[in-house]
């Protein structure tokens, strides 16, 4: 097995000798990995916005006029038993009228015989709920006696979910393409590196060197260069994210642990690319 210190010296000499190829290969790797970083930030941020939107959903339960005020306490208790609720607010007919006038202007209800607006309970949730969860909850609450109607902006949520589903589909395709491009680029980059080392590679073969001298150093180099490029890409992303603010949207960046895992995965992809790059030289 090639000694680590010799291997490190060999890499540094190679970088010094082939400055252009080494720097070019590294930059190409960093750029393709930054594509993944951008995709990661975009998906994280959009997912966060999606949950934020669903988190702002509230469910309004309109109470029948036939329900006497004395029954409201029991009703409120039943509504409050809903899982994941942050708060349940009772809105009287007067408060509903006041709210409507604030929104649409004073006197909007003038001329009507009395206040036609119903009383309601408004449920606020402490976390986002999917359409299926909201549908199930609505079904359960409808069984409560004295509830005339339930409203939670079903059509709006449906549209948001559809958009999220479409984004995920496109995301998988784009993610797949990016991964393919990364692997291809790494293989080509390593092929360039391998070509620049082909003379030494040939000499090693003539000496009777086995995979520990021929293959493993290449794999290690592929791993190191890709993982270093991955980490540097994230350093750049963190730096830029601190300088760029997009209106009220906060960019979602991965944790240090996630970056470490990502760097290892990038390194493994780099190894795969290195193997693909030198496979022909190995076989020859």
């Amino acid at each position, binding site marked *: 097995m*090639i000694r680590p210190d010799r291997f490190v010296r060999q890499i540094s000499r190679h970088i010094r000798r082939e400055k252009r190829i080494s720097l070019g290969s590294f930059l190409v790797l960093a750029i393709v990995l930054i594509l993944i970083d951008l995709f990661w930030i975009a998906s994280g941020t959009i997912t966060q916005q999606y949950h934020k939107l669903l988190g702002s959903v509230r469910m309004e339960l309109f109470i029948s006029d036939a329900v006497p005020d004395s029954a409201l306490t029991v009703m409120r208790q039943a509504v409050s038993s809903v899982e994941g609720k942050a708060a349940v607010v009772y809105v009287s007919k007067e408060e509903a009228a006041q709210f409507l006038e604030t929104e649409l202007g004073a006197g909007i209800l003038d001329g009507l015989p009395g206040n036609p607006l119903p009383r309601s309970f408004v449920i606020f949730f402490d976390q986002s709920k999917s359409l299926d969860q909201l549908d199930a909850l609505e079904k359960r609450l409808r069984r409560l006696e004295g509830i005339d109607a339930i409203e939670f902006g079903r059509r709006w949520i449906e549209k948001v979910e559809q958009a999220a589903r479409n984004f995920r589909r496109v995301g998988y395709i784009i993610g797949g393409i990016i991964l393919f491009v990364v692997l291809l680029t790494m293989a080509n980059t390593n092929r360039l590196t391998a070509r620049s080392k082909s003379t030494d590679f040939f*000499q090693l073969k003539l000496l*009777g060197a*086995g995979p520990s001298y021929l293959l493993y150093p290449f794999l290690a180099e592929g791993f190191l260069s890709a993982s270093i490029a991955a980490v540097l890409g994230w350093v750049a992303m963190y730096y830029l994210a601190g300088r760029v603010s997009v209106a009220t949207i906060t960019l979602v960046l991965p944790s240090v642990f996630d970056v470490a895992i990502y760097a290892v995965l990038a390194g493994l992809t780099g190894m795969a690319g290195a193997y693909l790059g030198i496979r022909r030289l190995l076989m020859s």
Partner: protein
Amino acid sequence: MISFKQVDFTHSGQRLFAGLTFHLQKGRYLVISGPARSGKTTLVKMIAGLLGPTAGEIIIDGEAMESILESRTKLRQLRRKVGGVGGIYSLLTELTILENIALSAEIAGLSPRAARKSALEACGKYRLTHLLSQVPDKVSEVERRAALLARAEAARKDLIVADAPTDGLDPQSAAIIHERLAALRLAGVTILYLTSGSGPQNGPDEYLHLHEGKLAP
């Protein structure tokens, strides 16, 4: 050590060897001379397992080349026994002279410590101690060739193939190379020397001439 029996080799329609036959016994020193393009380097490539004959048989260290070429392990074992200077053999450009020599010894099976010791000893013999940390590009041609011989010696190769090892060297430098080869022969190393000239005067046991694909004394 090496037997070529009725070896034919045709490349791009040109018949390079036609029934080439010779035997080089272990510990012997053979010089094969021949004009340019007579197939000397092809011979080296065949011994290194880079090319196979079109017909005939090559046996190295009791093993048929046909069987060696079928197994990567056998091919690696063969190459670990063969050292070379000139022709297809050169130093690794990214390693220093010492690293080049030690690495070859390590690949041949010595422990890293033993390989380094052996490399340092060989460098001493070839007067390369002042160049240990230099990369091959920074040393002269004669020093590079001396380092190749030192590499083969440190790795305790059984066979050294010298393909025009003194081409382009001044007579004094060529004499040093010849001296070292003769010393290696005395130490029991088998040597095959290929040249377009007459080859060394002292040391070799046998001289053959390669002409039109055949060998003759």
